[in-house]
């Protein structure tokens, strides 16, 4: 294979990574790709790094592989794996077509060499690392390219796909097909959508006008990998004798890192897309092994330097793996508006009067504690996308400012399915650990609390029991309450020892505006006891006669 083909290889691998990642976020019908989510996302740099800092295992070592690849081939992550990077390539490709069409001149040169913005770039990297070290992952959450991409897809593209699906349903039904079905919208969180939109606009504009400028000015991962690629083994090099400065390579270099005057390539900014290799009409470009050039550089020294940088970065991360959850925004979390039912015309006999008092946000099962979750999650919102019950929603300030947009369990639109562990299976950072089903079913993320004065049975003297119906462990059981002339009344009673905090009771409780039963989060998850199971005493004899 000649080096010209490297570009094609890059495109194919990038498309595979991109499509798989995209589909993980968009798959609202659960086609089953989720089982290989771990493999697909193994190489995502920041998620893998965080996972490794929490629990150093081979399964979490994807970022080390990326660093090794960078040391050998340069920033291949940015062009082959990073979904936001590949997304930018798609945008700049589309933008070029649009700009080429009006047919102004002949072919305007698309890109040109540009000056680096190292100060900004390293400032972003330093600030991200320092803030992370200081205990807040906010910068990381907002700038990690994988998570940014995830939020763009979750909050902007996914609603479009769902909308198209729901528009298609009646059309297909007219034709007698029920291949499509209506799906419910995700819970709308303005801040999440707003930040996703802002990211899309910045990234989109920069990539349409300047190729990979975002990656080389604002992306902390790009900055870090740039440091590693500075000492990488195989680098693109301009052969001064063979190059006649025809600028073909410069025109296709979206990183703007080719300097034809000096005949140099800025390897820190080079994203290893290999466009230049394919564009060069002659033999002006080559890939050279820089570790075999003792005249220019000592191979051992930069290697050691890179190792130390990596070690320092990892060390900083380790020190910051504990983040305290901030105060709960009570206005946000106890918002009683039910998006599903509020539009219904049904009026309750008497509105409830006692507000629920929640002491903290509820992090998903498998996250061990709110603090651990908050320190590891990068708010990529893959769990939000895959949650079939739509109860994982981005929090605003429930986890504090540094945990902005990290998902919390919110039981306004559903409850956590007892047997489901989808979010545990897809989380790429390990913020939600992949527990076994049995273990997940014993995680107590919170405990149900009953407000008798809000309960229909108490206020109206009629049976309800919706909470107990939904309870998978019968932690909420109905007990005798009152005998009226024409009926026996039952009222809920909570057994906190076997409650898992799934929110079934809270979701089903019909009282408005405040619920009579709600789940209060456990800052540190506990282990719920298993419900006691005794075989049914009265065996019914099938040979018995009919009782009527």
């Amino acid at each position, binding site marked *: 294979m000649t080096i010209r083909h490297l570009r094609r290889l890059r495109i194919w691998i990038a498309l595979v990574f991109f499509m798989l990642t995209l589909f993980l976020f968009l798959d609202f*019908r659960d086609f089953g790709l989720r089982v290989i989510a771990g493999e697909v996302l193994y190489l995502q740099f920041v998620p893998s790094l965080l996972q490794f800092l929490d629990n150093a295992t081979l399964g979490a070592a994807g970022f080390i592989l990326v660093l090794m690849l960078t040391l050998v081939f340069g920033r291949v992550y940015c062009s082959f794996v990073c979904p936001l990077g590949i997304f930018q390539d798609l945008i700049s490709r589309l933008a070029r077509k649009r700009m080429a069409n009006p047919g102004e001149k002949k072919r305007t040169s698309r890109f040109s060499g540009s000056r680096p913005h190292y100060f900004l770039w390293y400032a972003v990297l330093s600030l991200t690392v320092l803030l992370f070290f200081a205990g807040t992952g906010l910068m990381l959450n907002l700038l990690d390219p994988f998570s940014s991409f995830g939020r763009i897809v979750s909050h902007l593209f996914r609603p479009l796909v769902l909308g198209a699906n*729901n528009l298609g349903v009646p059309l297909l039904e007219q034709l007698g097909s029920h291949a499509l079905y209506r799906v419910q919208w995700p819970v709308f969180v303005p801040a999440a959508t707003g930040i996703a939109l802002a990211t899309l606009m910045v990234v989109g504009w920069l990539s349409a006008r300047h190729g990979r400028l975002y990656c080389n000015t604002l992306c902390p991962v790009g900055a870090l990998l740039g440091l590693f690629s500075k000492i990488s083994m195989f680098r693109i090099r301009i052969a001064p004798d063979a190059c006649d400065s025809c600028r073909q390579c410069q025109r296709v270099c979206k990183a703007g890192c080719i300097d034809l005057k000096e005949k140099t390539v800025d390897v820190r900014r080079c994203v290893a897309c290999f466009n230049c290799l394919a564009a060069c009409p002659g033999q002006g470009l080559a890939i050279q092994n820089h570790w075999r050039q003792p005249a220019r550089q000592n191979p051992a020294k930069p290697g050691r330097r890179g190792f130390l940088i990596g070690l320092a970065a990892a060390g900083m991360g380790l020190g910051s793996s504990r983040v305290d959850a901030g105060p709960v925004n009570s206005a946000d979390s106890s918002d009683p508006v039910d998006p599903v039912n509020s539009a219904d015309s049904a009026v*309750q006999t008497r509105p409830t009067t006692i507000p629920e008092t929640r002491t903290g946000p509820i992090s998903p099962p498998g996250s061990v504690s709110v603090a651990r979750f908050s320190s590891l999650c990068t708010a990529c919102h893959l769990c939000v996308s895959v949650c*079939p019950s739509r109860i994982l929603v981005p929090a605003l300030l429930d986890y504090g400012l540094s945990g902005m947009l990290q998902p919390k369990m919110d039981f306004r639109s559903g409850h956590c399915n007892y047997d489901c562990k989808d979010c545990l299976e897809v989380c790429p950072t390990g913020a939600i650990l992949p527990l076994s089903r049995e273990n997940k079913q014993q995680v107590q993320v919170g405990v149900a609390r009953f407000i008798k004065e809000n309960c229909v049975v108490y206020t*109206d003297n009629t049976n309800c029991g919706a909470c107990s119906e939904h309870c*998978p462990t*019968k932690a909420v059981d109905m007990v005798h309450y009152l005998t009226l002339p024409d*009926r026996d009344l039952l009222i809920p009673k909570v057994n906190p020892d076997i409650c898992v905090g799934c929110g079934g009771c809270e979701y089903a409780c019909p009282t408005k505006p405040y619920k009579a039963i709600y789940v209060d989060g456990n800052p540190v998850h506990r282990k719920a006891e298993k419900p006691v199971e005794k075989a049914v005493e*009265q065996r019914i004899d099938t040979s018995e006669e009919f009782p*009527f």
Partner: protein
Amino acid sequence: MDRRDFLKKTITSGIAAGSTLVFPKMGRLWAASQGAGTPAWDLVAVRGGEPDQMFDSAIAAMGGIQTFVPRGSKVLVKPNIGWDVPPERAGNTHPALVKRIVEHCLSAGAKDVTVFDHTCDNWVRTYRNSGIEKAVKDAGGRIISGDSKGYYQQVDVPMGKRLTEARVHQALLEADVFINVPVLKHHSSSMVTIGMKNLMGVVWDRGYWHRNDLHQCIADFASFRAPDLTVVDAYNVMTRNGPRGVSVNDVVSMKAQVISTDFVAADAAAAKLFGTEPADIRHIQIASDMHLGQMNLADLTIHRIRL
């Protein structure tokens, strides 16, 4: 089909369709008049077989499915598919029974047999893990989603005291024949789940029922559209911790089935099987007071079959 036949059918089904919209109960009259005749018994109870075998004998005793399902009709089969639990937990109607009913309907010449439920747990998993999705597809029926408000249309409940209007799934509004296939089980608030309680699965806002006198609402809604046939699955019966159940330890094997055109009678007989008096189940008593059906089993012709 000759021209006269064609015209007759077009006109009658046109009127039936139109009147279903205006007077929901009219559809039942038309559907009944199109059938082969009245069933031989008020109620048939079977014991001792598999769910599908028991249905075969029960429906045969009733005069065959064609008594209820005219050729070319649209049938809605409404099992209980409320919970994401496997069949042995008895939280949902037994899939073998649903399958057999769909097969019978299709063999009688039904144009279309639709199955759905507004599930309590996630519907995709519930459909799958209950075994009912596969059962319906294998039998040649159509299982559709009930998981979006867009499927439900506002209707009036004419005799309703507390429940005067509801959002009802369009599959019920479009059906010529409505077969209700509840599972008999314990229920934490309505005491037992049988036929009338199963109808909560065709409406969108169940919360309203819970906060506005549950038993009254259950009975109220039964006045909206009585099922043409009620088939109570009492093969495996959850005797406590209902309606979801905690484990298989809540379940006894009762191997029974009750079918009737009178859903109040079916619920009364099933309540007896469960070991409780029909009058102690408040919504059965209310429905009886509203003259929606016969709760007193002594006044019915009952055929008892042992397999």
